[in-house]
């Protein structure tokens, strides 16, 4: 089992979700986050003063998948989330030791 964390631009969420559903993925968990990176923040104004907002809204998608699907999923996310402009985001892949479905108590691949 692998956990794939994808940090993407918020307005790409629907496209990514659709692409993943296309792969037959059954679940994901989404978190609103703020990102800081190479992409420059935008300027805001407050009564004649300018200031830069460094943190940009991003969306994090957590996907737990069987090991053999990792490459396919990563590729799909990259395709769906890409705009080619700075700030498109990252994908982090890590190992998972166990997965449990709360409703049934099932474990491992069955639980995903």
């Amino acid at each position, binding site marked *: 089992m692998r956990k794939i964390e994808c940090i993407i631009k918020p307005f790409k969420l629907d496209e990514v979700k659709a692409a993943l559903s296309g792969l037959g993925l059954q679940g994901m968990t989404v978190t609103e986050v703020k990102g800081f990176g190479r992409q420059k923040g935008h300027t*805001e104004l*407050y*009564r*004649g003063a300018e200031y830069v907002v460094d943190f940009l809204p991003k969306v994090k998608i957590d996907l737990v998948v069987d090991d053999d699907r990792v490459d396919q999923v990563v590729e799909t996310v990259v395709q769906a989330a890409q705009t080619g402009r700075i700030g498109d985001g990252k994908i982090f892949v890590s190992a998972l030791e166990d997965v449990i479905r709360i409703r049934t108590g099932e474990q491992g691949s069955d639980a995903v």
Partner: protein
Amino acid sequence: MRIPGNFPMRHSKGCQGLIAGVALLAVSPSAHAAEEAVLDSGDTAWMLMSCALVLLMTLPGLALFYGGLVRSKNVLSLLMQCLTSAAVMGLIWVLVGYSIAFGADQHGLWGWDSAKVGLRGVAPEALHGTIPELLFAMFQGMFLIITPALMIGAFAERMRFGPYIVFSSLWAILVYLPLAHMVWGGGWIGEDGALDFAGGLVVHMSSGYSALAAALFLGPRKDYGKVPLPPHNMPLVVIGTALLWVGWFGFNAGSELAADATAALALVTTTTAASAATLSWILIEWIHHGRPTVLGAATGAVAGLVAITPGCAFVTPLSAIAIGFLCAPICYFFVALVKIKMGYDDSLDVFGVHGIGGTWGALATAIFAAPFALDGVTKGEQLWIQLKGVGFTALYAPVATLLILVLMRTLMGNLRVSDEGEHVGLDQSEHSENAYVL
């Protein structure tokens, strides 16, 4: 307008010519009984409503305007200060305020009339002009409710609640009420001929300059100048601005104390000046930063309303456009440049908007005064009279404020919340509450 009778009228000057002119064309029913004071139901209806409108300015108008501008951890402290202003000032007014402001003149500086204490001697059937005296008293009371509340923007996000109540109470008694008397209650500024129809000196300059003094005295917020402190809820700011604009019709046109031609003029100049200042402010931003902002539009609107307040019944609609249009760059200069340069943390720009806007308005009243508004003086003479009132207010209010604060610090200790309290926010540290659980 000196109505026959022995009570001091609020606006001792400026309406005469206009009213005389009106009287020729449009004799209102009540005028038939000029000798004998009679209640006019139309005037009374308008003043009942004006009380509601001026209260609306504080609750929820100003509360939201200020509450939206601070960070979400402090919004409740601002709302609380406005709510308790309506409570504490409302009581102070009924108990002693009306007497100090509109009681018999003492040395031109304050008033006193024990029959007005607790409104005990004010019978329901007593009149002030064509409206019940009780109604006149309460309308004026609404001004006391809003004025100290204007100041809270200057020391937002750091002053403790207990000291705030003590401070605003002392300030009301030592600064607002005497000033109201001096200008409207028969004191020296009004007698001198100064024009201040709805409170350029009494309300806006007094609170604006005092706010600056308080901001300097208390020192800046810990985060000021280190991290951006953007408004946490701009829609609240816009609701507040809108209700201030609407309520200001009662504030300015209500100050005529009658539903007549002067009230109509005041309403027209009020909304027109606000329109002009709103547009002017966003044009400045467009030029200066390439972007007009909602906060700019809101600030412009309030600044325009402030600037037209002293002169709203004394100028033409076209002059109101000029007053509003010019007020934006003047206030913007203080808000966006002077404040930054000088480094004081007037958190929500009470000085820049109310202090400076009120000053400009008081002077502009003379500069743009229509002929009927000048009571046998030239514009230059009127400007000199205005300058005296402006100068006095700009000195008296902040000095008295500082004395109050020094005294309070001596007796009560630190007036600010602890650093920890400032970090977690005043909502939690002072009120054990949380604005949002969304």
